[in-house]
């Protein structure tokens, strides 16, 4: 008779938000895997209804303290599509610059504080810092330049306040941005050092065959704009998002799962971006990726830490380029007339594609809102990884298996707080 084992973690550590993991094995066969998100829903979509369209960027920014810029960007792009507002250089570049800051903040937090301890055998970043203080100091200083970039463009590092539909409330002064360049140049070197550090880690031999989904722009590594493409041949635009992707309730999660209609689960995030856009990286970042052994496509989720480090380098390089070319705009935002309409947008949050759709009336009041964050889209993919990883390593002792499974979840840098804001009331709970 085979032995039945349960590996259970009631509160996942080193992830944003409140989630749990449960794995049931019958002998060496995986019977059930659940990533359980029990953080309560926050109903953001419901209380956006009836609010002014101009409030969407500031309200949705409150969904997440780690990636508020992503919410602001998807919100303003969707509103601008609904209202027919063209936003061009230099305001467009300022938005890319703002996103650079957020990617640096978010990725550096994850690489150094949350994920690196896994690979180096430390319980947490505190113990890591005791032995490898220089590495953690580098991470803290890198994170700070991300904060400084966001503050310079958007007013403050957390829940920024300067973004508005049509542009910004106030455009930053060129000299204020240029003042960041010396530290950004240090950051570019430190990011390259980070790529080399994480490239040398020991990665489990694990490959996935998920369908990767990301934005793709004709000549940029994607932040704000691009078509939605996938390694399975999908090629569409944000307004068709709901035609291709669907959300569904599962009993064990307070966040909706997502799948490509007719196909199944998919993978968004840095690894998807890289796999679909490695040819769009700057020469510096592409060279670093090649030196790190990534190749044009990376199928091992444990190597996502390398991809994040490459994207930090890309963000530093792109930020320096934007600041170098920046000319202060005549007006900080584009004037526009109100009209009724529907707008859609996808931008690339640090954790992947973030979809917003708004319907507004002729007074600019929000009639309906839909938000699909990246972590919810990745839930089924994370469970699939866990199922296959556990199946391959079922003979490991429980404590080692649990450690590896938690690491496998952290490969996705899940932001559970983001994922749970849209739960509908009729969700079934066990």
């Amino acid at each position: 008779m085979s032995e039945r084992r349960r590996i259970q973690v009631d509160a996942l550590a080193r992830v944003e938000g409140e989630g749990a993991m449960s794995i049931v094995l019958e002998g060496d066969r995986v019977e059930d895997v659940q990533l359980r998100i029990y953080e309560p829903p926050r109903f953001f979509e419901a209380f956006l209804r009836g609010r002014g369209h101009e409030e969407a960027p500031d309200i949705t920014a409150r969904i997440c303290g780690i990636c508020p810029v992503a919410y602001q960007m998807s919100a303003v792009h969707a509103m601008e599509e609904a209202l027919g507002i063209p936003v061009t250089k230099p305001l467009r570049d300022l938005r890319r610059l703002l996103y650079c800051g957020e990617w640096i903040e978010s990725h550096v937090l994850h690489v150094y504080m949350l994920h690196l301890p896994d690979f180096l055998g430390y319980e947490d970043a505190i113990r890591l810092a005791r032995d490898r203080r220089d590495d953690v100091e580098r991470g803290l200083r890198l994170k700070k330049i991300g904060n400084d970039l966001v503050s310079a463009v958007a007013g403050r590092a957390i829940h920024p306040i300067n973004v508005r539909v049509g542009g910004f409330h106030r455009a930053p002064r060129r000299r204020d941005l240029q003042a960041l360049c010396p530290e950004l140049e240090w950051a570019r070197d430190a990011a390259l050092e980070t790529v080399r550090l994480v490239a040398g880690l020991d990665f489990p031999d694990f490959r996935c065959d998920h369908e990767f989904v990301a934005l793709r722009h004709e000549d940029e590594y994607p932040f704000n704009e691009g078509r939605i493409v996938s390694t399975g041949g999908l090629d569409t635009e944000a307004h068709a998002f709901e035609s291709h992707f669907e959300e569904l309730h599962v009993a064990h999660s307070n966040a909706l799962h997502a799948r490509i209609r007719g196909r199944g689960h998919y993978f968004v995030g840095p690894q998807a971006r890289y796999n679909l856009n490695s040819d769009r990286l700057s020469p510096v970042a592409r060279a670093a990726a090649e030196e790190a052994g990534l190749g044009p496509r990376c199928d091992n989720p444990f190597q996502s830490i390398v991809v994040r480090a490459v994207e930090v380098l890309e963000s530093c390089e792109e930020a320096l380029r934007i600041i170098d070319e920046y000319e202060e705009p005549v007006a900080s935002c584009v004037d526009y007339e109100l009209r009724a309409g529907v707008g859609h947008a996808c931008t690339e949050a640090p954790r992947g594609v973030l979809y917003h759709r708004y319907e507004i009336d002729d007074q600019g009041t929000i009639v309906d809102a839909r938000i699909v964050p990246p972590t919810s889209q990745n839930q089924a993919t994370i469970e699939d990884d866990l199922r296959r990883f556990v199946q391959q390593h079922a003979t490991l002792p429980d404590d080692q298996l649990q450690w590896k499974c938690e690491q496998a979840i952290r490969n996705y840098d899940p932001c559970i707080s983001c994922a749970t804001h849209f739960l509908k009331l009729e969700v079934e709970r066990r």
Partner: protein
Amino acid sequence: MSTTARVLIGVGQEHRGDDAVGLLVAREVAAAGAAGQAGLSVIEHDGDGMDLMLVWEGAEQVVVVDAVVSGERAPGRFERFEAHATPLPTKPFAAHSSHAFGVAEAIELARAMDRLPGSLVVYGVEAACFDTGSRPGPAVREAVATVARQVLRELRLEEAPDA
């Protein structure tokens, strides 16, 4: 980064019940006119540890007020920790944090890197309810003024208060 010598950081979330206590104490202290006195900066913070270290960077004296769950005290009772001298008990501070890197972790990371302020005192106020959208319970609301008075004494006196 703080440009003042002394910082009071009230940690919490406005809409998660008793978790708001740090914010309420910070407001009470600010309302008493203490902000700006003798270089005191009063800050409301959501408790993300990575940024907490940046908030107190450069400060000589730091007081943090946060909700805790020890399970051993009644809601509203509080305890004073000299975190510059002794590590915080992790469990009471971590039990309710939704952050990957919270207050206790930030303090211990700073300790590991010799980046603690000279004086870092943490007031942990026992909390019971963290329900989304709820207001702080009566016991915690009643404790706010008491904790604020204690914090004012802490900030005005160099010697340890009689907590």
